[in-house]
């Protein structure tokens, strides 16, 4: 075995090394000594980004289990952006909530390594292991505020349903193995293609169980129950991290499994997924309208966005496949920005220890009243992110949705496109409600917000710039997305 055989795992190795370094730094830290642990994470992520750039177009493969094709590398780059922004916006929350910094950043980095592995795995067993690596880290991150009953409860609900869905996913892998004698996606794909005319009951069972497993991870209806609770209970930067990172990794694996290996059985799973996509968009939007908590509202919005991604996956034409990648990137930048703002506002209200046993403060829509006057910059950034989530031009969200719906129209699926456009219009209502609250309602009390830390503020500005860049000049990124998706299909 030559050293080149390890090339494809270099990005996740960088991130894992940074995670281990973060753990060691915490272990050897003198009490009270401050260490730049977040900086370590950033170094590892930059290393991963460099490795991904160098591996571009090389189609490197390690052990036949991990393939760094351009599709996987594009998702890796999205995950690096997610990681850098999450690390940058985590600082204020970690400090104010007195979370253990070493554990926090180490878990974040291990979760990222699992996500990168999931995006590049070409073997179902490795995909399962990657899924568990990322899930276990994210369960712990959700419950890291141990003094808060809400956080523990959210972590348990997330853990319970996550472990439950992993069992289904694994059962699906077992049947795939039984039918084809292999867990390798290439072999699985060729054997399923050979019997595509008349799939056996066991093949259908395998596809169905895998669909349930992926459905839980991308929080598609009817497997979405954990999402609002987990998103509400977790610290805001973690919510931003898991709503974007876990979604990106899960959709990358979803696309890889269902548009390559199980593509020949499309007639069997296509109709089910159509109903799931429609239900996900409608439920996410309709229930989102009645929420009074900002984090729960964004959780239902995240469910609805999962539905739009499913529409792009179902369209399955070149436009749709490119749209999945572009949408994941646009959503990652936008949503992390929004949760960064929420994190700054929420943590600023929790400074007195007496409130630590209460549910998260500053989380209700009415708490945002008058923010446009008391903190115009944060309110302006939040407005940009919310409008992008709602799909206003010229923000990233508009282009992303436009490509998804035009892909659906091109695939002849006008029904889903119409449902998608209608639910987007409805969703604008609850995004705008928050904007109206910030600018046109007087706050009850003179809210005091501490100065925004420089790194977090910088990250938010960068997110906003990226939102406009992807919205105004999307051509180059779209070309990359289209080019990278063509390497696996």
């Amino acid at each position, binding site marked *: 075995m030559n050293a080149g055989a390890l090339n494809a795992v270099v990005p996740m190795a960088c991130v894992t090394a940074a995670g281990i370094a973060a753990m060691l730094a915490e272990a050897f830290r003198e009490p009270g000594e401050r260490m730049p642990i977040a900086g370590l994470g950033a170094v590892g992520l930059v290393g991963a980004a460099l490795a991904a750039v160098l591996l571009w177009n090389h189609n490197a493969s390690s052990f036949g289990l991990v393939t760094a094709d351009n599709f996987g590398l594009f998702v890796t780059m999205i995950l690096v952006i997610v990681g850098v922004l999450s690390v940058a916006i985590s600082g204020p929350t970690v400090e104010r909530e007195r979370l253990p910094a070493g554990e926090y950043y180490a878990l974040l980095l291990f979760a990222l390594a699992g996500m990168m592995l999931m995006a590049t795995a070409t073997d179902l*067993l490795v995909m399962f292991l990657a899924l568990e690596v990322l899930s276990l880290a994210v369960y*712990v991150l959700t419950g890291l505020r141990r003094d808060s009953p809400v956080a523990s409860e959210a972590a*348990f609900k997330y853990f319970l349903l996550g472990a439950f869905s992993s069992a289904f996913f694994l*059962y699906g892998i077992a049947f795939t193995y039984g039918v084809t004698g292999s867990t390798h996606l290439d072999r699985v794909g060729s054997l399923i293609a050979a019997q595509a005319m008349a799939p056996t009951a066991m093949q259908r069972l395998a596809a169905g169980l895998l669909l349930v497993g992926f459905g839980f991870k991308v929080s598609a209806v009817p497997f979405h129950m954990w999402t609002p*609770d987990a998103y509400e209970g977790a610290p805001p930067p973690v919510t931003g991290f898991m709503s974007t990172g876990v979604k990106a990794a899960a959709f990358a694996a979803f696309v890889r499994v269902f548009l390559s290996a199980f593509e020949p059985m499309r007639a069997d799973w296509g109709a089910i997924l159509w109903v799931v996509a429609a239900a996900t968009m409608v439920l996410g939007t309709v229930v989102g309208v009645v929420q009074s908590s900002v984090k729960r509202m964004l959780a239902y919005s995240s469910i609805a966005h999962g539905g739009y991604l499913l529409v792009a996956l179902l369209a399955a034409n070149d436009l749709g496949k490119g749209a999945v990648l572009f949408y994941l990137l646009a959503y990652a930048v936008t949503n992390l920005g929004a949760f960064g703002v929420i994190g700054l506002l929420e943590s600023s209200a929790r400074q007195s220890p007496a409130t630590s046993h209460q549910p998260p403060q500053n989380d209700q829509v009415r708490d945002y009243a008058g923010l446009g006057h008391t903190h115009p910059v944060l309110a302006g950034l939040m407005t940009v992110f919310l409008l992008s989530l709602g799909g206003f031009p010229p923000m990233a969200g508009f282009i992303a949705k436009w490509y998804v719906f035009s892909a659906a129209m091109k695939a002849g699926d006008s029904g889903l496109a119409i449902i998608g456009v209608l639910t987007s219009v409805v969703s604008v209502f609850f995004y705008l409600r928050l904007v109206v609250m910030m600018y046109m309602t007087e706050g009850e009390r003179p809210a005091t917000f501490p100065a925004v830390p420089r790194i977090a503020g910088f990250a938010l500005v960068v997110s906003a710039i990226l939102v406009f860049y992807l919205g105004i000049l999307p051509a180059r990124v779209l070309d990359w997305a289209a080019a990278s998706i063509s390497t696996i299909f």
Partner: protein
Amino acid sequence: MNMVAVNHYLVLSAMLFAIGAAGVFVRRNLITILLSIEIMLNAVNLTFVAFGRALGSVDGQIIVFFVMTVAAAEAAVGLAIVITLFRHKESLNPDSFTSLKW
């Protein structure tokens, strides 16, 4: 001579999986719910071993080792979360945890 065909194992493991899945929803104790999830994972293990034997390949048995490792890690994290929950409410009944709407 092969009295027990692969289908018998598959039916048994499907039954175990169903028992585990039902236990997650029916039982009213957090520890029992965790055990139900372990039953589901072990049902899958049985499926892997049965298929591995039927196909005459050793892959199925090797996969089980990975799954067992993952199950152990999952149990550790799950129990840790249950302990933090118990410290808040001194209860293992899932109905007593209602800070978040389901």
